[in-house]
């Protein structure tokens, strides 16, 4: 998993490799500097050799400048590699999602995809940048500082050999214990945010049903959960720094005592003794840092897993790149089609249906009867479980998917407009559409009149989700957008539910007049929207209950007749 994620540094590989190299160089300077300092004191100051002091000082300054240079270069390359890596990661994720089929999107759900592309990527980037800068630096520091300490102090550095493993073990245990608490606390945060979020969006419901007290209880539970786990974890962490202090002061005392003995017998100089103190500080802090990296790694692991899951998932639909590119006509046939979103759940059963090119077909039925699913199969939004859906005489799987979808235009029930101008939104249907063509489509969808009233007309800004249009206006814009594709087949899934009956009729008449060669499939709750269709399909519990013209159905289908009567009562 990590290998897969980190392989996405691609063009930033050089920078990624350069960063730790610069960090190592910086570390070299960092451990060199105390040694020079020791020389200054032991040789220079002790012998009062001013020339030597100046020489060594110059060397020290040079080292400091080099260390600065390496440090800044490390920061620069590290940041660039980190930013580049996260950019690639985001890019790969985004492209992967573009390949997703409808069922993949259903599986992950948009909200979870958003988390993966935003929060998770940011967290992994932090880990990455930290890793390439510190992952090599800290162990290197540990090793170099130990070597230098050994050089300066000889057997004195045995102190570290004894102390380090004990300390490492201590840190390890602590990290492990606190991790479980931190993890629990972070999970608690999800619930916490959920309660607050639901209360914000549902405040009217909460107040209307006077549920404030119950909600407060819910909230208090989630807040208490966070408090409990964080207190546990942080109390444990609170012991960390005293422990470090204990060890480092312990080292200091031991070094002082044995160091004094060594100096006494002339096996060591005071300057070296002081440099060992510096090295002991470096050794301990790099050990601490290594521990931190482990903590960060474990904390970002769930994020890495979530990202890897998206990247690893293969699109469940074969796009058939080499498939047929031309859809000859708009005829559709369903042959013994069965379908379920999950295995074993039958949403559509034994569907057989013939639609001729250019026909207008109405689909009606209760919520959950499978209307939307039925039409989804035509544009191959989903693949059938068994049986075959044919468009233009060929199974939909034989076409290049893009060509198929360019010929089958679906106005979805849950439709979306995007932030941008009206023109940009409509050009989703056809990138090259001229203003004339756009206006023509708007006119058919009965949307031209209200767009003309807007400031800037086609340049008028559409807010995210089309929030600055009413529901009916949004629907009409979506129909116009679909028309611009000049498809062979146009599918409207309850696309005029928020449009009043009069406008609805106008749209249908325009469709009949201007685009009558298109096969049109209209799902509607209103019989008035489909009564003049060439055939009407009644769906019931995943099966086709009846197919016929309005007159035929009134004649033979009691349910249909009943519905028609309830709906037309208002129009006598």
């Amino acid at each position, binding site marked *: 998993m990590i290998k897969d994620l980190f392989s996405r540094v691609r063009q930033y590989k050089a920078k990624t490799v350069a960063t730790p190299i610069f960090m190592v160089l910086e570390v070299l300077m960092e451990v060199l500097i105390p040694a020079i300092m020791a020389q200054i004191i032991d040789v220079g*100051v002790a012998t009062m050799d001013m020339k030597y*002091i100046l020489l060594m*000082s110059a060397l020290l*300054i040079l080292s*400091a*400048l080099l*260390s600065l240079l390496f*440090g*800044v270069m490390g*920061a620069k390359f590290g*940041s660039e590699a*980190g*930013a580049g890596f996260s950019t690639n990661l*985001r*890019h790969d994720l*985004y492209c992967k999602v*573009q390949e997703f089929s409808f069922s993949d*999107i259903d599986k992950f759900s*948009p909200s979870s*995809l*958003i988390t993966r592309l935003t929060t998770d990527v940011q967290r992994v980037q932090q880990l990455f940048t930290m890793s390439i800068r510190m992952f090599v630096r800290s162990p290197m520091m540990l090793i170099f500082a130990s070597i230098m300490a050994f050089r300066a102090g000889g057997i004195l550095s045995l102190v570290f050999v004894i102390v380090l493993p004990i300390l490492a073990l201590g840190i390890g245990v602590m990290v492990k214990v606190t991790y479980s608490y931190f993890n629990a606390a972070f999970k608690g945060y999800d619930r916490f*945010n959920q309660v*607050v*979020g639901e209360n*914000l969006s549902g405040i*009217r419901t909460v*107040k*209307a*049903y006077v549920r*404030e007290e119950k909600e407060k209880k819910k*909230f208090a539970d989630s*807040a208490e959960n966070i*408090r409990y786990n*964080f207190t546990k974890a*942080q*109390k444990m*962490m*609170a012991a960390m*720094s*005293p422990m470090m202090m204990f060890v480092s002061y312990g080292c*200091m*005392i031991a070094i*002082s*005592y044995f*160091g004094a003995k060594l*100096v*006494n017998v002339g096996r060591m100089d*005071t300057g070296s003794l002081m440099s060992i*103190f510096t090295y002991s500080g470096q050794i301990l802090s790099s050990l601490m840092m290594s521990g931190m990296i482990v903590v960060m790694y474990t904390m970002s692991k769930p994020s890495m897993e979530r990202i890897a899951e998206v990247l690893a998932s293969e699109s469940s639909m074969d796009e058939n790149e080499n498939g047929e590119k031309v859809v000859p006509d708009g005829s559709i046939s369903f042959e013994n089609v069965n379908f379920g979103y999950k295995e074993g759940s039958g949403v559509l059963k034994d569907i057989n249906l013939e639609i001729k090119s250019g026909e207008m077909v109405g689909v009606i039925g209760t*919520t*959950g009867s499978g209307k939307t699913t039925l039409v989804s199969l035509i544009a191959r939004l989903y693949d059938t479980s068994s049986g075959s859906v044919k468009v233009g005489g060929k199974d939909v799987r034989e076409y290049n998917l*893009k060509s198929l979808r360019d010929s089958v235009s679906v106005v*979805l029930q849950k439709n979306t407009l995007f932030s941008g101008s009206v023109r940009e939104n409509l050009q989703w249907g056809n990138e090259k559409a001229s203003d004339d063509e756009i206006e023509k489509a708007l006119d058919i969808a009965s949307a031209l009149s209200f767009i003309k009233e807007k400031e800037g007309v086609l340049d008028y800004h559409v807010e*995210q989700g089309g929030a600055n249009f*009413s529901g009916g206006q949004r629907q009409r814009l979506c129909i116009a957008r679909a028309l611009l594709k000049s498809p062979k087949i146009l599918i409207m899934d*309850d696309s005029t539910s928020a449009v*009043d009956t*009069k406008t609805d009729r106008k749209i249908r008449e325009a469709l009949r007049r201007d685009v009558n060669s298109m096969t049109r499939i209209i799902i509607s709750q209103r019989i008035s929207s489909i009564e003049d269709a060439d055939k009407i399909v009644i769906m019931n519990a995943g099966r086709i209950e009846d197919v016929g013209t309005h007159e035929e159905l009134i004649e033979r289908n009691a349910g249909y007749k009943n519905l028609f009567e309830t709906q037309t*009562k*208002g129009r006598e």
Partner: protein
Amino acid sequence: MGKMKFGEKAKNPKATFLRLMKDVFEGRYLLIVLIVFCIILSAFSTTYSASFIGSFIDDVVIPLKGVENPDFTKALIYLGKFAVVVLISIAASFAVSYIMVGVAQKSIYDMRIKMFDKLESLPLSYFDKNARGSIMSRFANDTDTLNQLVANGLVQLLTAGMTLVMVLFSMAVNSWILLLVVIAFIFITLFVTGTIGKKSGAFFKAQQKALGDVNGYIEEMMNGQRVVKVFTHEEKCKEDFEVLNKKLEKTMAEANTWAGSMGPVNNNLGHLQYVVLVLVGAVAIIARPDIYTIGALAAFLQLSKSFSNNISQLSQQANNVLLALAGAERIYKLLDEEPEKDNGDVTIVRVKGEGDNIEECSERTGHWAWKVPEGDKSTLVPLKGGVVIDHVDFSYDGERTVLSDISLYAKPGQKIAFVGSTGAGKTTITNLLNRFYNIQKGIITIDGVDIKRIKLNDLRRSMAMVLQDTNLFTGTVKENIRYGRPQATDEDVIKAAKLANAHDFIMMMKDGYDTVLTNNGENLSQGQRQLLSIARAAIADPPIMVLDEATSSIDTYTETLVQSGMDKLMENRTVFVIAHRLSTVRNSNAIMVLENGRIIERGDHEDLLKAKGVYYSLYTGKTELS
């Protein structure tokens, strides 16, 4: 945790800080004394240990150099003393952080509870005015930074400050010439880090903006991904995304480069300082070996290192404190919001008896009354649900009038419908009934009692609302239906679900009534959610019901099935209906046609058709509602 907010500093840090301290430490005075004492101890031992090495070298190591049969007792005494000081310091710093963790977490918890209690008490206008995202970040991010402040920031700030003073003192005692060097370096350091900080701050702002753009785009496109697929727009989306993504990369690399340079720069300034100190010290030792010693120089070097560590600690913490205070300020702003006014003294009570002969009782009778206190006594008014709206004017902002001169009445059990365009004021009227908003002029009464006199909770218990947008809460289907009446039994829940025609689809779900709904019931269709909402209202069983586009997302086929249930639901209740679909309103006792906040037509279906006005043309499809 929480996202860093750059450039957002507190406006009134002092007052906010004092208030925060009061909230955190009030009643914990003994603790404060203990903590300050511990901090002083640990600052002292830091200083002591910094100068320890110097004196150890001067007093013990050097005199013993080359001595035969040396006596190490003095060394042991020195080290022993040192060990004691160190142990005390460790104990002190452990105590401080251990105590503060508990204090911080408890006060954050208390703060969150206070915030949520306040949130639940705020009037709807607050939620209209404040974006959901910004309130969310009050709860999550701002309280988190506060935690950082209380648990670490304060202690570190105090420790660093105190250590600084002590170290400065020791340095001054040790050598004032070297101290001058250190002071000069403080100014250099502050200048350099200040410059870098400013630079990186600006880039971080740009980065936050770019990140916001990318995340915003991702959110919009992920939610519209199905449309992208249908229009085979994938390639174009990739291109658009690439532009934003590249921009983010650039600003991010720059911002982090500057921020990452801070460490090396500070570090090497320290080295530079070291060189200057050594040079000056060496000159001093050579010139006056009687006053200056190697040990003293060593001690000073150690002190200066501790000094610059604490300076950078202090500046870093000071910045964090200001950020946290900005968060605290936002939290206090929420806590200082004016809650919903509730001066009502009229309550709902259970009653038994018939007609005028009713009396309060505690057992369930299914009968209720308004208990209206008058002086010492109180009268009981049977709860029937008769509503009178009398010459009511209303405005959300005090400027633009939304409703003017609305008068209407509904006798108990009557059905009143509102018809009109979006923005005509239909929903607003129903929101005045349960006092989601308060009227500016006129009076509204229920069973003759002014609603301003009724306790808010009791007023709202007397009516149920089914809104166009259904809000479901994370929890089981059962819990969601029971939302209308927490004490309802499982049988009640099923009965209500059957009435709303929701039973069948609920039974088809994985765990039936125990299926857990998440994310506002994301796997349900809009229509199914409305059915649950109707069930919820049914179980609440109040005398007044408001149906605001309650069946707008239910297909007419299903609606005919729900219809009998709806009829039963409306039986013996005063009902206010808002509907686009005129077939839903035609059998109302009275229909009010609204336009621009005024009632322009009223009467029952037949009357209005005969009048051949707006309603007539709507009904016959001559005009459309927008």
